[in-house]
């Protein structure tokens, strides 16, 4: 399919009112998820459990509709409460929260919404430009290159798992091991399946693994912590200034256009590199803005709007740009992208060369959905922030059982068996243990999703080559290994730098505000 033809097909899909409704519905769920920490991934999983029963075009539109605005509404708790809505909105707190305490919450939010919109739109356009070019490159690769790429994808993500590289690698290998349960794809023989549990012949379902490893431990965290994220202020106090100065904030973005361009560019670069993503990019852009903007060294941390614009421009761009390696190479950049990769596989698409050759129209559908969802999301936030912000004030003892119930129902729909629920309990025990004892969970999901892809290429390579060494030493494979190692080292360096910046900036911010008003920057992210 030609590029123009594919773009027109994608555009004609958008003419379907059901597709537009799906994007709108996804955007509302995405906005609500972003406004409430810990519910982003559970929300996506519930949507995916529904989407696999839908027409693939509507399902893709729904998922992208939800993915796009999460990074916009996660600013609400960051600015209003000093608590990040997600790991990619931590740096926004440093200046956004002092602005809110000065009665400038609306200005900070207006700037954040427009900056996020620009970042999301630029990255979506970039996907449309890069994918057709990537098709030419990816078509040059053969099985050994895809095997090396899948392996390197797992390795890179695990290597940048913060200070726990070996744990990250082991978690990825555990994911690959879980993926081997079921039926051998070559001969159709059962593998690691007890006779008494025929349920496992089809292997573990992605929905069960993601709910068990990520979603349920998050909900358990909510119940166990037993406190609303908004503890220090009342809902009325927090949203009082939310509509004041929005347009002034948006004008500030236009006045700082070069900062926006730099931050979006950095966000896109980080997004394309597998592994680091959201937890790092906001700190990196914040640090670069502080180092390059005039007078920022003194004013950042005290309520400077540029400290909000920089991270917010970047995090939306990163989130969309992460789809590029996921769709073009079948290599997810992080946990969310691994879930999306699994989602595409469940829908019958095979990200990688076949996807680019046969489903370029879906690529354009993704681009148009992201564009529309970003616009929808920004408009809704501009006029309905007050209501989305109040979500953060719901008690965990009200929210958690509702989400838990929906997750149990969603888990059951994976194979319509009681075994779904039994295995969900076992997998969630593993997920909770990993969360509690500092095991990185994203590599496990990436290993699980990439496992079958690895097995397919491993089998083809072993059928064509005498040994793996011959396959791995082909010049294109060596180039991929070199590039992957360079990315791993560079990503690890960026992550280290962002951690140092984060520590310094948080210290400065905590010194700048009264003790009782210090922002609650979390332990895990930075």
């Amino acid at each position: 399919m030609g590029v123009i033809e594919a773009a027109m097909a994608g555009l004609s899909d958008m003419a379907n009112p059901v597709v537009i409704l799906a994007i709108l519905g996804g955007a509302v769920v995405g906005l609500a998820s972003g406004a409430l920490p810990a519910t982003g991934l559970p929300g996506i999983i519930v949507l995916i459990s529904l989407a696999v029963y839908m027409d693939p075009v509507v399902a893709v539109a729904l998922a992208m509709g939800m993915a796009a605005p999460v990074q916009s509404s996660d600013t609400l708790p960051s600015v209003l409460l000093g608590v990040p809505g997600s790991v990619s909105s931590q740096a926004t707190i440093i200046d956004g929260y002092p602005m809110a305490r000065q009665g400038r919450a609306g200005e900070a939010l207006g700037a954040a919404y427009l900056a996020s919109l620009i970042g999301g739109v630029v990255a979506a356009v970039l996907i449309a430009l890069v994918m057709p070019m990537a098709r030419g490159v990816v078509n040059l690769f053969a099985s050994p290159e895809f095997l090396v790429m899948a392996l390197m994808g797992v390795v890179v993500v695990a290597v940048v798992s913060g200070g726990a590289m070996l744990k990250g690698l082991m978690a990825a290998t555990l994911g690959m091991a879980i993926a081997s349960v079921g039926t051998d794809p070559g001969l159709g023989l059962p593998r690691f399946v007890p006779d008494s549990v025929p349920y496992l012949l089809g292997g573990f379902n992605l929905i069960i693994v993601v709910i068990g490893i990520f979603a349920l431990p998050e909900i358990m965290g909510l119940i166990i912590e037993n406190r609303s994220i908004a503890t220090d202020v009342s809902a009325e106090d927090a949203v009082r200034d939310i509509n004041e100065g929005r347009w002034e904030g948006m004008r500030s973005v236009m006045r700082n256009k070069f900062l926006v361009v730099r931050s979006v560019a950095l966000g896109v670069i980080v997004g394309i590199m597998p592994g680091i993503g959201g937890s790092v990019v906001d700190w990196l852009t914040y640090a670069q803005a502080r180092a390059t903007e005039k007078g920022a060294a003194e004013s950042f941390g005290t309520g400077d709007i540029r400290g909000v614009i920089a991270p917010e421009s970047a995090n939306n761009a990163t989130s969309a740009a992460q789809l590029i390696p996921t769709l073009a190479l079948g290599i997810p950049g992080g946990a969310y992208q691994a879930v999306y990769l699994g989602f595409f596989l469940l829908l019958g698409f095979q990200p990688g060369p076949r996807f680019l050759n046969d489903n370029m129209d879906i690529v354009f559908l993704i681009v148009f959905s992201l564009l529309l969802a970003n616009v929808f999301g920004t408009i809704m936030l501009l006029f309905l922030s007050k209501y989305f912000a109040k979500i953060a004030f719901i008690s965990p003892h009200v929210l958690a059982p509702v989400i838990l119930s929906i997750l149990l129902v969603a888990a059951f729909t994976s194979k319509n068996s009681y075994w779904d629920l039994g295995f969900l309990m076992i997998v969630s025990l593993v997920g909770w243990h990993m969360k509690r004892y500092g095991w990185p969970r994203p590599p496990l999901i990436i290993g699980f999703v990439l496992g079958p892809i690895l097995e397919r290429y491993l089998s083809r390579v072993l059928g064509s080559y005498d040994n793996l060494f011959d396959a791995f030493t082909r010049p294109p494979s060596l180039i991929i290994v070199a590039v992957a190692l360079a990315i791993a080292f560079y990503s690890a360096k960026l992550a280290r730098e962002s951690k140092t910046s984060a520590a310094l900036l948080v210290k400065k911010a905590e010194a700048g505000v009264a003790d009782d008003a210090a922002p609650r920057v979390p332990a895990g992210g930075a």
Partner: protein
Amino acid sequence: MANDTANAERKGLLDVIRTTQRIITLDIIFRALLGFVFVGMIVAANGMPKTSFGDPSAYPRFVGVIGLTLWVASNLNELVTQLRGKQQGRIYDITFQTTGMSPLVIWMRTGWVFGIMGATIVGVWLLNFHLAIPLFLISYLRFIGKIKWWVAILIGALMELPIGVLYGALIHVVWPESVLERVFDFSLQAPFDYLTRGLPF
């Protein structure tokens, strides 16, 4: 005298339990299980048939060998870290960690969460999703969330929308027959299917 001896014995036993708990932590058990998985994969792979059509043992062996190598390296690294008294590095996870709570409270609440999940699953087997999930929600919201009865009942009733309408009637998920439905020979999904039969989905 007998009491003193009993107390001393009890104290000695408690010391042994505490020391054991320090050495055999849950993470050690988790690591041991991981090692068992990787060794098991290698052993099982060796027993798998190899034909000219394919080698089903290749992938498990590949994963098992890599996993075991990493397992040895990780445990050695952990040992060295512990002996040197160094702190583990922080991880980049998707979310944040529970902080500032005593391990005992975390344990008790973890047990409680798994307990209510298990009870709900048993409830689903006995009563079907249609009754078990709203009942779980109403009781949790009322007795733990301390919200008003009518709000709890309303939220519980609204849960029927995703279960009966969205999943059941629109995307045709087949809910399993519960013990209650089997005994009384009826279907809790039937009213939803009847009410939504004219919808264009």
